[in-house]
């Protein structure tokens, strides 16, 4: 017998055993030599049920009393907190293994149940077994030849389709057996058995006690068990009826001491107390020969307690509660759900050597650096093994101690003892320091650190940066890496981890650094690029700026570009020439900018076109991708960093501002817009009129009303777009708002039109707004008013201001979209979790097939052409460039 928790427990047990065995192999069979490094791994885990024998054998104590502590507060022998089951109090020693708190893993105990009880998790198994085996002889209700036939089938199914298909097949077989009413082996007639949930079995209106059930299950021969998908060597059916109950170690149900000195016991201990108490009473009543009815009541109560001990969420039972009324959290609830053992503690781990704080931008650190505040840097440590060669400077760190930077916080002796460095211990530590010791020193400039922002949706959400120690209290990062982290600076926090082993550091440095993550495996383009000011800055620089040479050099130097010999030697240099100094001398590129002009870079000189989002932005344009391909990752982030700084500094030097005046329109433009609006509205009125007269023709597959709606929507959108065009025609291209729009840094022409002229139709679920009162949206309008105004068309612009009902409609759609976001996040999160769970084990094998861990082939070659997206250019091999290069004789 056994429980799911015990399945987990046993798992651990077996892991331990296997560990022990393997160790024995290492130390034992090879003779007397002891190898001081043995890296062994757990090879497999076998699951099974616990038999009564095993439960007794693995138990360290028999529990006989529900009392926990004696008067002195010392655990009672034979009680639930018996110190043979492990210790949870500091100072005490475990009676079984002699370990102290944290050393002793805890040991199982057991109680003998006065009467057997059914294990709730196996009720359905017991039910099928009872129904499909003979109540007299215990055989399956089908003849022997059928048994062998089915067994062969099962074997075949498992081979071909795996273990789950086998389970399915067993299910089908059992379904057909259940209805047989005569035993083919002994001829006994089978009575009808029903299950009264959760745990009562009834045969012909008479209850079968767990004692009888157990007797019947015992009769089922091993051979027949297999037909039910039970492996009798690990799970005999009668073990599903508990006669002995294992008591989990105290270490897994520690009590907590409240401030008042009172002890508060764990939920499990409470439940176990109930079980032991009732069990005790049942024993006494049995011995005293109490009447059957009392015995049965107590038996049922014991069944209830044991059932809720395993699972407190059984459908037909009221959950066991605390005195306060909140339900107890028992074994099943401990394991399952997001906060359960598996997902919370086993599949998710916690780490030390980590830090979290608010982030803020810093243009002047490199893209692959992270600014770490002094407070953090003096708390987190890097372990360094002492050798003859680094002894001297490590000594200095120790001398500095934990309070002076750069110092050290701990040392670890070769025997593994950790010692804190304080003013008192300093002298002694310095004296005893020798090669082999480990010094946990402060984090220094240049150390590698992992940087992460949740939600970690893709692998670029966790990258490694080099530490740059900075003052103040926030983590600093280059704004260029905001895109992969999806970070902004409105109060976002991020996490920082310091890798602690050489392997981890090597991996972080070779595989996780920002430059290695430049090309997104999602679409094969650079995910890091210029953003915001950097784009508009470079746009202005390459489009219209001409600077005196001196000023240009000053700009370049301030952007950290010291190599300015590429700048032509003339009085006034163009912005393009300034920009070109950043590019590699032999870089050639052809592309297009947002206006459709060709961007030509020849021998590192920008000949034509402007630098805008198409070429600099993240996820678009091949310029960065090309630089990456030719000059490598390192060079790319250097160049990108320079471009970024150049753009931003251009703005800080030459000024950039957006204002209300940018949306000003000349009078005739205003009038034209008004006229167009009026026209559109008149037309809509006409449409409504034809509709009312019943003369409107419907679109195919639509009702007349739907058609009208569609026509109005189209008309109004057209009007809005038209006014947008007028705005664009009249808006000054010189305004900084337009520069932002044109460079792609921020904003769209639509935004501008909405500010200057007309916000447009507010749509909910693809329709005009129609909810609200009976036949109207607001009481301000007449009933059945289909006019644009009453259905959420906002004809004013933001600058002009919305009138009250327009404002209301805007708020309506605003709320709607807010809700949409709130509902979408968990939905997409669940989809993601499912995808990740289904696909996480797939990998490319050495033969370039994609397989799952059991070796089944998912794809014969990855993506049909084996190409890794992050090594491609937007998902493809760029044949055209190769042809051009060959023909132009460049390679």
């Amino acid at each position, binding site marked *: 017998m056994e429980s799911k928790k015990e399945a987990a427990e046993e798992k651990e047990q077996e892991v331990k055993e296997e560990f022990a065995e393997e160790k024995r192999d290492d130390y034992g069979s090879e003779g007397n030599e002891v190898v001081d490094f043995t890296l062994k791994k757990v090879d497999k885990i076998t*699951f099974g049920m616990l038999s009564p024998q095993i439960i007794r054998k693995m138990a360290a104590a028999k529990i006989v009393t529900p009392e926990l502590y004696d008067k002195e507060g010392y655990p009672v022998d034979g009680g639930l907190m018996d110190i043979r089951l492990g210790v949870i109090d500091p100072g005490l020693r475990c009676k079984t293994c002699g370990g102290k708190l944290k050393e002793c893993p805890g040991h199982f105990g057991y109680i003998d149940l006065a009467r057997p009880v059914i294990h709730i*998790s196996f009720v359905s198994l017991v039910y099928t077994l009872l129904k499909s085996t003979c109540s007299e002889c215990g055989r399956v209700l089908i003849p022997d030849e059928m048994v062998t036939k089915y067994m062969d089938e099962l074997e075949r199914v498992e081979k071909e389709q795996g273990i789950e298909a086998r389970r399915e097949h067993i299910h089908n077989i059992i379904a057909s057996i259940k209805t047989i009413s005569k035993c083919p082996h002994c001829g006994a007639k089978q009575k009808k058995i029903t299950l009264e949930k959760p745990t009562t079995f009834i045969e012909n209106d008479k209850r079968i006690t767990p004692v009888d059930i157990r007797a019947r299950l015992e009769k089922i021969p091993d051979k027949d068990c297999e037909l039910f998908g039970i492996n009798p060597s690990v799970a005999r059916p009668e073990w599903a009826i508990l006669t002995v109950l294992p008591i989990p170690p105290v270490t897994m149900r520690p009590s907590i001491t409240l401030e008042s000195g009172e002890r508060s016991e764990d939920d499990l201990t409470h439940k176990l107390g109930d079980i032991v108490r009732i069990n005790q009473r049942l024993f006494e009543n049995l011995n005293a020969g109490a009447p059957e009815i009392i015995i049965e009541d107590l038996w049922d109560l014991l069944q209830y307690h044991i059932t809720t001990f395993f699972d407190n969420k059984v459908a037909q039972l009221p959950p066991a509660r605390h005195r306060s009324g909140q339900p107890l959290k028992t074994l099943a609830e401990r394991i399952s759900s997001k906060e359960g053992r598996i997902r919370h503690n086993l599949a998710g781990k916690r780490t030390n050597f980590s830090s979290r704080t608010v982030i803020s931008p810093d243009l002047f650190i490199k893209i692959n650096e992270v600014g770490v505040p002094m407070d953090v840097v003096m708390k987190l440590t890097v372990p360094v093994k002492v050798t003859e060669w680094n002894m001297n400077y490590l000594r200095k760190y120790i001398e500095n101690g934990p309070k002076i930077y750069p110092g050290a916080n701990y040392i670890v002796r070769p025997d593994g003892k950790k010692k804190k460095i304080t003013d008192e211990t300093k002298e002694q530590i310095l004296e005893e320091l020798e090669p082999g010791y480990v010094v946990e020193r402060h984090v220094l400039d240049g150390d590698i650190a992992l940087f992460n922002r949740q939600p970690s949706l893709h692998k670029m959400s966790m990258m490694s940066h080099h530490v740059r120690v900075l003052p103040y209290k926030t983590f600093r990062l280059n704004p260029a890496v905001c895109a992969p982290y999806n970070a902004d600076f409105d109060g976002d926090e991020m996490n920082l981890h310091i890798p602690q082993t050489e392997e981890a550091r090597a991996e972080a440095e070779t595989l996780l650094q920002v430059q290695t993550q430049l090309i997104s495996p999602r*679409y094969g383009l650079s995910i890091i690029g210029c953003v915001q000011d950097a784009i508009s800055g470079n746009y202005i620089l390459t489009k219209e700026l001409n600077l005196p040479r001196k000023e240009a050099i000053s700009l370049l130097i301030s952007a950290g570009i010291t190599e300015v010999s590429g700048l032509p030697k003339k009085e006034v240099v163009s912005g393009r020439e300034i920009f070109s100094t950043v590019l590699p001398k032999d870089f050639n590129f052809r592309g297009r900018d947002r206006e459709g002009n060709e961007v030509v870079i020849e021998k590192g000189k920008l000949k034509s076109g402007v630098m805008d989002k198409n070429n600099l932005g993240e996820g678009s344009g091949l310029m960065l991708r090309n630089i990456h391909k030719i000059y490598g990752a390192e060079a790319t982030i250097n160049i990108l960093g320079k471009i970024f700084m150049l753009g931003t500094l251009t703005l800080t030097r030459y000024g950039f501002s957006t204002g209300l005046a940018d949306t000003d329109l000349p009078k005739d433009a205003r009038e034209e817009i008004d006229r167009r609006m009026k026209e559109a509205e008149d037309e809509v009125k006409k449409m409504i009129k034809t509709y009312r007269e019943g003369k409107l023709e419907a679109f195919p597959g639509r009702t007349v009303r739907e058609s009208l709606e569609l026509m109005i929507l189209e008309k109004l959108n057209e009007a809005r777009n038209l006014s947008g065009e007028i705005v664009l025609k009249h808006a000054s291209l010189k305004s900084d708002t337009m520069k932002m729009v044109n460079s792609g840094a921020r904003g769209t022409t639509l935004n501008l039109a909405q500010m200057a002229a007309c916000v447009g139709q507010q749509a909910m679920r693809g329709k005009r707004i129609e909810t609200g009162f009976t036949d109207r949206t607001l009481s301000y309008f007449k009933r059945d008013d289909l006019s644009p105004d009453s259905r959420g068309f906002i004809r004013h612009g933001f600058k002009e201001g919305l009138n009250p009902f327009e404002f209301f409609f805007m708020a309506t759609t605003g709320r709607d979209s807010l809700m949409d976001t709130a509902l979408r996040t968990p939905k997409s999160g669940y989809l993601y979790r499912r995808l990740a769970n289904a696909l996480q*084990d797939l990998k490319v094998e050495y033969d370039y097939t994609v397989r799952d861990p059991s070796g089944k082939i998912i794809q014969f070659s990855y993506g049909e052409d084996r190409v890794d997206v992050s090594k491609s250019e937007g998902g493809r091999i760029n044949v055209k460039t190769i042809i051009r290069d060959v023909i132009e004789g460049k390679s």
Partner: protein
Amino acid sequence: MVTKMSDVFKEYERKIPPKLIEEVKEALPPKTSRERVKKILEHVYQEWLSSWAEPGESVGLIAAESIGEPGTQMTLNTFHFAGVAEMNVTVGLPRIIEILDGRQKIKTPMMEIYLKKGYHQKEKVREVARQIKETKAGEIIKEFEINIAEMNLVIRIDEDEMKKLGLKPAELVKILKKGVRGIDLKTEKDRIIGKPSEKDAGINSLYKAKEKIRNAHIAGVKGITQVLPVKKGDEFVVVTAGTNLAEILKLEFVDTYRTKTNDIKETYAVLGIEAARQAIMDEVFKVIEDQGLNVDIRHIMLVADTMCFSGTVKGITRYGVVGEKASVLARASFETPIKHLVNASLIGEEDPLKSVVENVMINQPVPLGTGLPQLSVTLARTPKKTVKKKKTKGKAKK
């Protein structure tokens, strides 16, 4: 050296994927010399070789990330109107979820019916569309009347609709008789009179018969509730709401090669697993593209392949792909852990610890990427004695 151009290509055909060869052929300027072509092909080959995904690459998780991450940016609950008169289609996140769930019934089934040559005049397309659309008896019946005194059902027919269909009352009765039982139907002028076939049947049976008649299939293809001819390029395509691939493909004017449905299970049932895989890829890609997002087709391909490689379409759910993993712990870590642990204990299931989660659980390196290489190192401890073999885990650099 007299080598033909085709020989040059032939040499590389075995090496380079056909699609790349195609691309080269297309992009090649005319009159390129053979040597140059050879050089180009060699370069393409090298380039292709160097962009292979490396062994151990965790392509599965990358695919999951690539689809899951943009999921947060997709719209919910938006129906889509491309053009004025198109019909409602599920788009965005709900559609992706629907596809990956491997649902039996989808929310908005649709078909795109391509037509053979010779059917591309406006008139003919209209005619075709009319033929496809399902007509239910309710649409051509003006009125039902239950006469309690005589215990019969009087049906008045809409003669205009009948004419459109070219149907006579007698024929209608014939059709209805096939589909509806428990009532005797007779024509009487412009009416049809139905009497219950059992004598003492109550008003209830009349009512039931009425509903049955209303839903009886009269003409067209079952399941096609709406038709809409759409001009695509210079040909017409009939877009329908509701799908019935098997029946549509039987019609003689249908181009069976291009006609498709957006129902993956139906595609699987009618055209088989390869078609289903392609359908999943197409549909998912369409949605993502629609939302203006950029996800490489390879990721979608991998998801489609995981759903289809067993030979049937399986959803990414606890009943589908995830529920069929070999590892107990991997299954338990997803959903319903208790169930998986209990079942595993019954058969003494072994977890071979070959996939990711289990190894995370027991704090061991994960068998992906840098955790994959296993290095055998021979360590000579004491030179005199026999040399021992030790297995250690090695870190391999990419």
